[in-house]
């Protein structure tokens, strides 16, 4: 009896130790990642058998398309096994930070406008050595290459071009019995339209808050910028104007009330516009298909209302996401080859479509436009409308993206609930923003 017990115990112990041992190898791949056949990727294994780890965030549609392309790549390159590590946006960067700290980050990593933060922290590999060899960027838009170039080194391949816009629920406009505005509308028209919409519709507000991204566009309309050439290029006055604009909109009934706004979700399916809580919301153009896919209503994408004094819409074409390579990746050249396939290969890009934005390779883009369905065509139309009317340069994120975004949201909420006057809140925001930026920039140098 006792012997049996001891035996069982030893067995359990062995199992535990084994589990511990293999855990450290796999610790990085979370529940989402499908561990594919090969267990380990030793640094200098036989040259033809390698494993690449590729990480991205997104919704289900992006996962499906990306996985399909990975399969295609593995078929064409039998010596490469790709371990995908994908998840939603929540927690993606928290996990990545932990992996970077532990030195076991994926080989290929998707970044957003915060690529600069990570380049500053010296964890991204410059791709210059591969350009022209493994990686062809000759047909890529110059501005998108620039956006991933820091200190004259090229760090990431742009996965798509996108532009901010105002998504409008056309069906609700019809229900309210109000004619759609022209695509060259102004903030004055916006201020006039939104309260009418709220009034004519039951339980729906004219617009949801345009948030921090909207503020960036608003600034560009005044020829000011959040952060350009290493400095903040706006004044507290601009912050006051922006928050006063929205305060007035709430008071006129045009914008959603605080309780609705604060509880708003950024997931397309649960967003205010899809839930019919608001008629208009600001989105990035590559999200258009996710939003239209989540509703029966008819949506249309508009540029931001123009500033009637400067006559500018302030919208620029911008990179949606990048793929970049981890500095300590043992297979950097193979990673670069994968990037090349991902953005330049005709079949691969046909699968990926417009989901991360309009392709950055002009040939690929022409091919996709020629074969676009209705939804995608609407996005390409919008992108070409913007490239014709665009009057603002691309502005990368301010350093310290996470912290700044939270600060902006907090400031909006302080104003929603009258905890400070707009003037006071705007000045406090400005002061703390400067401190944040200084902290991030100084820390890295």
């Amino acid at each position, binding site marked *: 009896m006792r012997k049996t017990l*001891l035996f069982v115990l030893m067995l359990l112990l062995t199992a535990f130790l084994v589990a511990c041992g293999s855990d450290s190898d796999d610790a990085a791949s979370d529940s989402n990642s499908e561990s594919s056949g090969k267990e380990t990727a030793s640094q200098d294994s036989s040259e033809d058998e390698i494993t690449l780890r590729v990480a991205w965030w997104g919704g289900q549609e992006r996962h499906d398309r990306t996985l399909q392309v990975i399969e295609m790549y593995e078929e064409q390159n039998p010596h490469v096994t790709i371990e995908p590590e994908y998840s939603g946006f929540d927690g993606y960067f928290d996990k990545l930070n932990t992996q970077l700290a532990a030195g076991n980050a994926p080989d290929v990593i998707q970044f957003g406008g915060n690529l600069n933060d990570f380049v500053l922290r010296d964890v991204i590999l410059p791709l210059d050595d591969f350009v022209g060899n493994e990686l062809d960027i000759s047909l890529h838009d110059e501005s998108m290459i620039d956006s991933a170039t820091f200190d004259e080194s090229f760090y990431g391949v742009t996965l798509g071009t996108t532009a901010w816009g105002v998504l409008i629920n056309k069906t609700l406009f019809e229900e309210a019995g109000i004619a759609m505005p022209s695509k060259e509308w102004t903030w004055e028209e916006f201020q006039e339209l939104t309260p009418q919409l709220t009034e004519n519709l039951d339980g729906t507000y004219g617009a949801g808050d345009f948030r921090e991204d909207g503020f960036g566009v608003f600034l560009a309309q005044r020829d000011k910028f959040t952060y350009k050439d290493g400095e903040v290029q706006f004044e507290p006055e601009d912050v006051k104007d922006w928050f006063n604009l929205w305060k007035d909109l709430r008071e006129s009934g045009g914008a959603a009330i605080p309780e609705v706004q604060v509880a708003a979700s950024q997931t397309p399916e649960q967003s205010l516009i899809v839930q019919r809580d608001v008629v208009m919301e600001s989105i990035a153009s590559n999200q258009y298909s996710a939003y239209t896919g989540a509703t029966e209503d008819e949506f249309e994408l508009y540029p931001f209302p123009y500033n009637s004094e400067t006559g500018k819409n302030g919208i620029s074409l911008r990179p949606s996401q990048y793929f970049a390579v981890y500095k300590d990746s043992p297979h950097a050249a193979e990673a670069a080859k994968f990037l090349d396939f991902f953005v330049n290969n005709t079949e691969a890009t046909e699968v990926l479509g417009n989901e991360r934005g309009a392709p950055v390779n002009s040939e690929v883009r022409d091919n996709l436009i020629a074969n676009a369905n209705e939804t995608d065509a609407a996005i390409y139309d919008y992108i070409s409308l913007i490239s014709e009317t665009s009057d603002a340069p691309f502005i990368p994120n301010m350093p310290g993206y996470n912290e700044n975004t939270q600060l902006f949201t907090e400031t909006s*909420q302080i104003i929603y609930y009258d905890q400070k006057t707009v003037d006071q809140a705007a000045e406090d925001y400005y002061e703390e923003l400067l401190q944040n930026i200084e902290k991030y920039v100084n820390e890295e140098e």
Partner: protein
Amino acid sequence: MQQTANANEVKLTKKKSPSSARKQAIAAYAFLIPWLIGFFGLVLGPMISSLYLSFTKFDLLSAPKWVGLDNFITMFQDDRWIAAAKVTLTFVVVAVPTQLIAALLVAILLNKKMAGIGIYRTTYYLPSLLGGSVAIAILWKNLFGMDGLINQVLAFFGIQGQGWIAHPDYALGTIIILATWQFGASMVIFLAGLKQIPKELYEAAAVDGAKKSQIFFKITMPLLSPVIFFNLVMELIKSFQVFTSAFIISEGTGGPINSTLFYTLYLYQKGFTQFEMGYASAMAWVLVFVIGVMTLLVFMTSKFWVHYEDGGKL
């Protein structure tokens, strides 16, 4: 209870041959190994390194830089840290008593003899098993949302609801209610405590014509006080470390306007989203210190209100 069980075992083994005692010792250590590995590898090691990191500036990637007491000094000038401390203290001061009172009241009700009592006990215990989970936090968010069930019920009675979770004055309240609802674990311990009270005492009191309230305050409460004390300490320690519900309900922001910025949530933000791991470590050690002091305080007051039948000699 565990201690006495062990003591009995020790007495038994003494009578056996030395070799079987050694075998038992080996078996005991073999059983302990998984725990020891876990303790040294996953608890003690990280704790020591976090103590070191708390005196450094550490962004997770470059080597930590020694900054002495800077992190601790910064804390008291950091408005968000102060907000987080306030939120957490409010939570502890409100949620711990309400949860204990709820647990005690339900335990008293469930101490009655009636048909199907087992089902009731299980039912009331369930929330404490589920309550800490992500799923419940999401459920809560929907219950208290603008179009949530709570508001629909209120609307039925003609009361205009609020966006409870979206309003800085009410968001913390919804989390306190969530915590109160998870009274099951304390309730089970209270129930066990109630069962231990000798029936003779109640019978004697009834014979003497004591009122129900008198019985409760003169018999039940004093005899239950060691259990109350135990539950109080456990809940106190647990409440200081609340994280999941606030993280999910506020989507990791601690909003609206830091109203649900729990201490641990702010610590997480500092460490993992703002790359200030040194500061986060310092925060963690301050929390350890505060929990330690609070627990000590409760222990010190215990001699005034905790009544042990055997005179408190453990």
